[in-house]
């Protein structure tokens, strides 16, 4: 079973994201901060990351930079899911290596298929 790492400092938001993806037949790992996200990535294999940007201490973008600067994560899909809908944030995140840039509020019917496609693409 594939594992998705859900990174968001809001526990309610993490649960909403996991509920939206529950039909995908995946396992979840969670992180409540940027540092914890990096820790989870290092200790356990992950197939996809759903990443919030605005978090205490290590910002989502720094996590993204960290991931992209290491060979073993070079193909790991990272979906940024944030409340920031401005073009500047989007461009920065995509430039730093985000695979997709999605905004909150999101609906399960749009989030789940995108994640499914990314997982399928990563396998093939």
């Amino acid at each position, binding site marked *: 079973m594939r594992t998705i790492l859900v990174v968001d400092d809001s526990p309610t*938001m993490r*649960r909403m994201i996991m509920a939206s993806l529950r039909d995908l037949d995946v396992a979840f790992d969670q992180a*409540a901060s940027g540092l914890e996200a990096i820790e989870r990535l290092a*200790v356990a294999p992950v197939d996809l990351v759903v990443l919030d940007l605005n978090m*205490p*201490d290590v910002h989502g973008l720094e996590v993204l930079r960290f991931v992209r600067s*290491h060979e073993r994560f070079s193909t790991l899909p990272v979906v940024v899911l944030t409340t920031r809908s401005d073009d500047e944030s989007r461009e920065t995140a995509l430039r730093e290596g985000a695979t997709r840039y999605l905004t*909150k509020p*999101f609906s399960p019917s749009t989030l789940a298929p995108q994640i499914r496609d990314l997982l399928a693409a990563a396998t093939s």
Partner: protein
Amino acid sequence: MTGGDAFFGEFIDDYYAECDEHLSTARRVLLALEADAVGSSSPAPEPAQLRELLRSLHTLKGLAGMVGDACAERLAHALEDALRPIERALVPVSQDVVDALFAGVESLDRCVTARKSGGAEPDVGDVLSRLSAVAGAHLPRTDQRHAADVRSDAPGAPVQIYRLTFTPSAALSQRGMGVDAVRARLAALGTVLDAKPRMFESGVVFDFRVECAAGRCPDAAWETDGLAWELEETPQHSGEHGTAEQSAVSEHASAIAARAAAGSSVVRVDLSRVDAVMRLVGDLVTTRSRLDGLVRSLDAAGASSDALEETSAAMERQLRQLRESLVRLRLVPVGEVFERLRFAARDAIRESGKRVALVFRGESTEIDKLVVDRMLEPLLHLVRNAVSHGIEAPDERVAKGKPPEGTLTLRAVAAGDRIVIDVEDDGRGMDAERIAIRARERGLLLDDEPLSADRMLELICAPGFSTRDEADRTSGRGVGMDVVRSTVRALAGDLAMTTVPDQGTRFVIELPLTLMIVDALLVEIGGQQMAVPQPALREILQVERSEIITFESNEVVRYRGGVLPVVNLGQLFALPRSPRDTIYVLVVGAEEAPTGLLVDRLVQLREIVVHPVTDPLVAMPGVGGATDLGDGRVSLILDAAALVRLALERRDHRARSRIPHAPASGARSTNGRHLVV
């Protein structure tokens, strides 16, 4: 906007709970911001605090969007826009700006509350335009940001810096030692200056730099938690490291310190789940005592049962520990409620035009979440009362030789399994003469009766008692002293007061550390009210007294084609028999062997607080505890399971049987009318 509202409906309670947390963060930071706005000692708001506030609002906005709370989403957004320039410029803000921010947070709270209670959405148009005026105002840009990031408390105090590394592993993470837990630990040691991940072949290492007071050092036991450390060479003084090295420090560093302690090592659990576990533990205690009984009977029969006895005793100890751990799960720091009081007091102080310093002591004292929630309104009342009636206006105080600024102190102290909260002001004290006159007018006090402090408290807590002709705006809101007292009583607490003319008044509230609250049916038996916990009830039947039959020395009623043995509670407790003909049978016990409890009247279904009966003179079989109905009357709580056991023991001596020939007409229905429980 996307249409996930209905889907995310299942998270609405999580949303409300998380909103509470973010709103309390917002209040705390705004109060600090206000202190900066009016005080001259701090030149600019703490950037870490502002970032924390912005993050809270940002998260709240995101969540509000997910659950379709447009009102809260708009306000959070407007607050964010208003705060962003303040965070960038880092200049002191004016009182007007702070007021607009306060108004925004209050409206945001009202939006969330309205949605929760199904009330009408508040009109936020005015607040939104005030906030957008703040957002549009031009603030000068400064470069204070990094300088201000350096903590400036205790300047010159000797400090030392530790370099620590944490190497996470799956094994450590399994026992809860993750990077966030480590960071929380370090934040408690000192200020986390830097936290950086470093990747290598087989994993990751986190490098931390922590500044702490000289002499403090990491606990040696941390070595087993994947931590290693060394002291940085040059000893430094705080405030001196703001140069080249400091600029390399992550700008998030102080936020780490501020936030980490309350970080992700906290799990939010629904209280009802904790209660469910607590009930299971209660059942386990009963099962164990049954086991103990069996062990004793073995003993009596001459069998050697030392090992069994030891095991049973060990189990008792473990159960007690389990129960104590569960009780601790329910505890929260009382500071949480103090923060909300500070917020409310601020309004009362501004309205009254008085000068009042609020002092909090013992904020970290822990108390049951339920007790805290219920005490909020009464404490608010005491605080508002002290501000509007207790503390004098500055000129009046000066004339009395007091400092112009009054002091209102809230203190919390734990004392065994009780917690004492007191609210003390240094104001004018209670006007005994006025209270006496008013009480005599109302016939509550005899002409020659002296007015002790206790009596005075009793009088001011009488419903509708007020020495004011018209309650003024501030203290007139919400609840009165009568509600303060009944709330404290219903929580199994005590309220006391001392007052000295011109020196002030002190209310002392003593509360139990934790409570068990259940839904119970209040019933009347022989003129006495008693409570039966609702989970014990299977069914309620209405019967005529004449339908109770004596069958093989047992009292029974016909029930589901057979008979139901009943326990006459009036008789059991030796209470006078009621003259009623129509009475009720509460069906309790296991499905295969139900028992009926006879009661005279059903009073109401309500929540009660369970107080264990510890006095051996009062304790009796069949009584599980007592509850205060809030009006000073005490009611016994019946332990249905114990009553059933009593009934079974009595029946064990007699043959249990069914009526041999059940009447044909009653084969499928009962003779009584069913009531829904």
